[in-house]
C-alpha cells in the first residue's frame, strides 16, 4: 500500500466536520463518520434528518458549507470530494449513486441504461467518437465487451429476459435493481444507495439484501446506504450511523445502535412528561435556560442526565455493552428473520414465550400499590437499594425512573412479569411491544441470576 493512506487504511470514505446550511436551515451539523472499505455502512435516521443531504454532498450534487470528504481509492489515490464536480466524482473518484425516487432513463431499453453507465470507458475506446464513427475495430470490441458486462449485471439482477424492454416498462422492484446495476456498471469503489428497499415487498427486499451482499463480497465494492427498512439495515450492514437533525447521535454495529437509548428516543419520540423531567434534570445540572434544555432533549439531554447522576452513568451504558452485545449477537445470528417478523407482530409471540415459562408465584392484587401497576410492584426497594434497571437494554434513565415510580426496583421483578404485567408496564412506559421485542424478561432473568451469584456492589464497580 502507498504510504499516503494514513491514519486509517480501512476507511474508504472519511467524512470530517461536514456541515451543510441552506440559508438559515442547518441540514447537517458538524458530522463525522467513516465508511470502511469492503463493508456495508448504513446511514439511518428519522425523516428529515439530513441523510439524503449527506449523500448529495458526497456525490457532489451539493457543495457542503464546511467540512472535508476524503475518498481513498484502492490504489491509494485520495480525492477530496467536496472540491469535485458531480460527474468527476463518479468518473475519477469512483463513487456511484442511486436515487430515492428512481431515476432511470425510462425511454431507453434496460440494456441501453447499462451501456450509458459505461459512457466514459466507451468514449475513450471510441476515440471520443471520431474513431468509432469511422468504424475502427477498437470500438467494436469495446462495445461488445460493454454489452457482455451489461449482460453480467442483468444476470445478477435477473433481468436478462427483459433486456430489450424499455426501462420504464419494468415493475418497481426491477427498476430499483436496475438502478443499482446501472450504478455498478460505472465500476465504482463506493456505491451509495438512497433507500434501495423503499417500496419493495418482503421478497424483493430479501432479494435486494442478497444482491447487496453479493456486490460487497464479489466485487469488493464498499456500500453506503440510506435505509428506513430496519430488516435490511440490521441484516446486511456492518456498520450503522444514525443521524438526527443533521447530527450524528449514534455510530457502531447494528446491535449497539439498535439498543442505543438515543436512537430509540429519536425514532419513537419522547413523552411530554419526560420533557418536563428532562428540563428538571437540566436545571439540576446547572442549565437555567429552559428552551436550551428542550433543544437538548432528544440527544444531549441524555448526556445531561448522565452528568446529573454521575453514580448511574458508568453503569448505565458502558459496562453493560460487552455482555449484552454478545448475547444479542447470538440471538440475531440464530434467527435474524424471526426478529424482524417479531417487530411487526410484536405483542403476540412475546406473550406466548412468557406464558410458556411459569415463574415464581407473585400473585397479588394489582390495586395494592398503584392503579395500573404490575402485579409484583413493591412499595420500596428491598434493603433500600434498587437494582440498576438501566443495565437492561432498552431501559433508559427515563424509563428507569418511571419503573421505579411504579414500584419496580429489581431485576427479578421484571423477570417475573406475565402478559398482563407487560401490558400494564407498556401502558405507563408508552411502549408498543418493545418489552417483548427487546426481551426485557430474558435479560432481567440473567441479571437476576448474576446478582444472586455475585454481590451487586462488585458488579457496579467492575465497569468493564
Amino acid at each position: 500500500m502507498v504510504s499516503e493512506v494514513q491514519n486509517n487504511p480501512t476507511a474508504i470514505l472519511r467524512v470530517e466536520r461536514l456541515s451543510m446550511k441552506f440559508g438559515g436551515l442547518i441540514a447537517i451539523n458538524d458530522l463525522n463518520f467513516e465508511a470502511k472499505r469492503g463493508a456495508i455502512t448504513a446511514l439511518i435516521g428519522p425523516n428529515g434528518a439530513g441523510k439524503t443531504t449527506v449523500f448529495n454532498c458526497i456525490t457532489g450534487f451539493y457543495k457542503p458549507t464546511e467540512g472535508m470528504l476524503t475518498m481513498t481509492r484502492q490504489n491509494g489515490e485520495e480525492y477530496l470530494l467536496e472540491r469535485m464536480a458531480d460527474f468527476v466524482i463518479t468518473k475519477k473518484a469512483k463513487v456511484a449513486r442511486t436515487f430515492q425516487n428512481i431515476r432511470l432513463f425510462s425511454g431507453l431499453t434496460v440494456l441501453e441504461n447499462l451501456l450509458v453507465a459505461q459512457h466514459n470507458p466507451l468514449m475513450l475506446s471510441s476515440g471520443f467518437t471520431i474513431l468509432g464513427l469511422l468504424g475502427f475495430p477498437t470500438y467494436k470490441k469495446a462495445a461488445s465487451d460493454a454489452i457482455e458486462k451489461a449482460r453480467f449485471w442483468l444476470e445478477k439482477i435477473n433481468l436478462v429476459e427483459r433486456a430489450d424492454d424499455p426501462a420504464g416498462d419494468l415493475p418497481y422492484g426491477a427498476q430499483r435493481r436496475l438502478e443499482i446495476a446501472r450504478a455498478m456498471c460505472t465500476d465504482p469503489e463506493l456505491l451509495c444507495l438512497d433507500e434501495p428497499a423503499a417500496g419493495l415487498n418482503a421478497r424483493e427486499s430479501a432479494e435486494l439484501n442478497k444482491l447487496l451482499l453479493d456486490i460487497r463480497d464479489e466485487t469488493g465494492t464498499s456500500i453506503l446506504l440510506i435505509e428506513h427498512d430496519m430488516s435490511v439495515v440490521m441484516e446486511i450492514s456492518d456498520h450503522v450511523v444514525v443521524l438526527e437533525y443533521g447530527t450524528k447521535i449514534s455510530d457502531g454495529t447494528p446491535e449497539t445502535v439498535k439498543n442505543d437509548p438515543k436512537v430509540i428516543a429519536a425514532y419513537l419520540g419522547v413523552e411530554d412528561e419526560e420533557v418536563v423531567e428532562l428540563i428538571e434534570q437540566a436545571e439540576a445540572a446547572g442549565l437555567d435556560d429552559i428552551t436550551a434544555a428542550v433543544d437538548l432533549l432528544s440527544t444531549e439531554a441524555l448526556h445531561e442526565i448522565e452528568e446529573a447522576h454521575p453514580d448511574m452513568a458508568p453503569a448505565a451504558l458502558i459496562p453493560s455493552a460487552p455482555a449484552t452485545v454478545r448475547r444479542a449477537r447470538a440471538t440475531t445470528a440464530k434467527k435474524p428473520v424471526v426478529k424482524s417478523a417479531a417487530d411487526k407482530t410484536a405483542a403476540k409471540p412475546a406473550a406466548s414465550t412468557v406464558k410458556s415459562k411459569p415463574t415464581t408465584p407473585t400473585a397479588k392484587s394489582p390495586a395494592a400499590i398503584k392503579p395500573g401497576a404490575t402485579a409484583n410492584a413493591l412499595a420500596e426497594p428491598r434493603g433500600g437499594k434498587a437494582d440498576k434497571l438501566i443495565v437492561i437494554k432498552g431501559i433508559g434513565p427515563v424509563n428507569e425512573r418511571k419503573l421505579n415510580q411504579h414500584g419496580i426496583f429489581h431485576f427479578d421483578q421484571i423477570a417475573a412479569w406475565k402478559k398482563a404485567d407487560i401490558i400494564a408496564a407498556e401502558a405507563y412506559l408508552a411502549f408498543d411491544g418493545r418489552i417483548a421485542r427487546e426481551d426485557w424478561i430474558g435479560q432481567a432473568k440473567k441479571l437476576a441470576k448474576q446478582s444472586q451469584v455475585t454481590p451487586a456492589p462488585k458488579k457496579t464497580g467492575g465497569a468493564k
Partner: protein
Amino acid sequence: MADVQKIEPDSVFAKAVKEGLLAGALAFGLFFLIVGFRTDQNIRNELVLNQRWGLLAIFVLVAGIGRFLLTAYITPWSEARSKNKRAAVEKEQSAFRKSFPKIGLGLLLIYPFLVILILWAYNGSIMGGLQGSLKYVDNFGIQILIYVMLAWGLNIVVGLAGLLDLGYVAFYAVGAYSYALLSTHFGLSFWLLLPMAGIFAALWGIMLGFPVLRLRGDYLAIVTLAFGEIIRLVLINWTVVTKGTFGISGIAKATLFGIPFTPGPTGFAALLGLPNSGVYYKIFLYYLILLLALLTAWVTIRLRRMPIGRAWEALREDEIACRSLGINTTTTKLTAFATGAMFGGFAGSFFAARQGFVSPESFVFLESAIILAIVVLGGMGSLVGIAIAAAVMIGGTELLRELEFLKRIFGPDFTPELYRMLLFGLAMIVVMVWKPRGFVGNREPSAFLHKRKMVSSEFTKEGHG
C-alpha cells in the same frame, strides 16, 4: 329529416344530418358578415357594399356537408378500423415499414430521371421532358431535401438531446453567409467552403451552447430564439460586410470536379454532348443535397450507436441521472449543439450555392419554426418520420401552387399559396390530434441483446431543455 328520425331515431345517419345542419347553421352565423358582405371603394371613392351570397353558400355547404360526412361515414369507419387493427396481426405493416426506408431511398435516387422520363412520354419530346422536370426537381426535390436535411440536423439537438432550439435557422444563415462571403471575396470553391461553412456553424453552435448550458425548457427556447434573431439582425445591420437587406448576389455556383454548369463550350452539357438545358445543374444540386442529407442521416445513425449518441438520449431522459453516471453533461450538450449546427451550416452553404443570392429575408424565425414543426410532426428522433413530415409540409405547400381548380371554386382572385400557413397550421393540428408523438413516435433502440424491439413513445421523454 323528421321522417328519418321517426324510423331510426338513434341511427348514425340521423345524427349526422342533425350535426351537419347544425354545422351549416354555425358556419352561416360565423361567415354571414365576414364572407357574405364585402366593402369596396368604387371609382368615385365611395364605399360600395358587395353581396357575395354564392361564396357564403359554398362556405356553409362545405361546413355542413363536411360535418355530415365526418359523422356519418368517417368516424364509424375509423372506429371499425381501430377495432379491426387490434385484432389484425401487425406483421404485414411492419414488413412494409421495415422496407420503407429502402424503397424511399431508391425512389429518391431515381427521382429526377423518373420525372424526366414521365414528362418525356407526356410531352413527346426530350426537351419538353427536361424543361418540364425543372419545376419538379427544383421546387419539390431540392426544396424538400433541404428541409429534410435541416430537420435531421435539428433532430440531433431537439430529438436526441432534448434541447429545444428555436433559433436553428441562425446556423443555416451562418453557413449560407460564410459561403457567400468567402466565395465572393476570396473566390474559394464550393467544395472547400462546404466543410468550412459546417465548421463555422459548429463554432457558432458552441458559442450559443455556452451561455445556455444552465438553461432548460422554456428558458432555453427563448434564449435560442433570441440568438436566431441576433444573427439575423447582425446580417441586416452590418451593411459593410453583408450589404444588409440587399443581400449578396452573384454567388458562384457549385461545380462538378471543376466542370461548370454553364451553357458555354466548357460547360457540362457541351462536354457530354447533351442538349443545352438548365436542368443539369438542378439535377446535380438534387444529388448533392441528397448526398448531404444522407450524410446527415448516416452520421446520426452512427452517432446513436456511439457512447455520445446514447449520452444525448440519456440527457433527454434525465440529466441528473446522467451526471450521476459520470457523464459530462456540459460537453455532451455542446457536442449536440455543435453537431446539429454543423449540418445546418452545410445546408446553408448549399442553399447559397443553389440560389446564387442570400439575404436576411431567408432566415427569419418562421424558418426555424417550420424546421422545428417538421421535427415534431415527424416524431422526435425518427429519421423516416421527419423525412415524411418534410415531404408533407414542404411538398404540400409547393403543391398548393398547382391547385388551379381551386380558382374555379373560389373565384379568379383566389391564390392558394396565401393560405399556406393556414393549411400548415391546420395540418399540424390534425397530425398532433391523430398522432401526438408525430408520424413515427416509436424509438428504435441503439443496441439489443436478444431482439430489436421498438420502444413505445409512452416511455420516451421529450427532454426538459
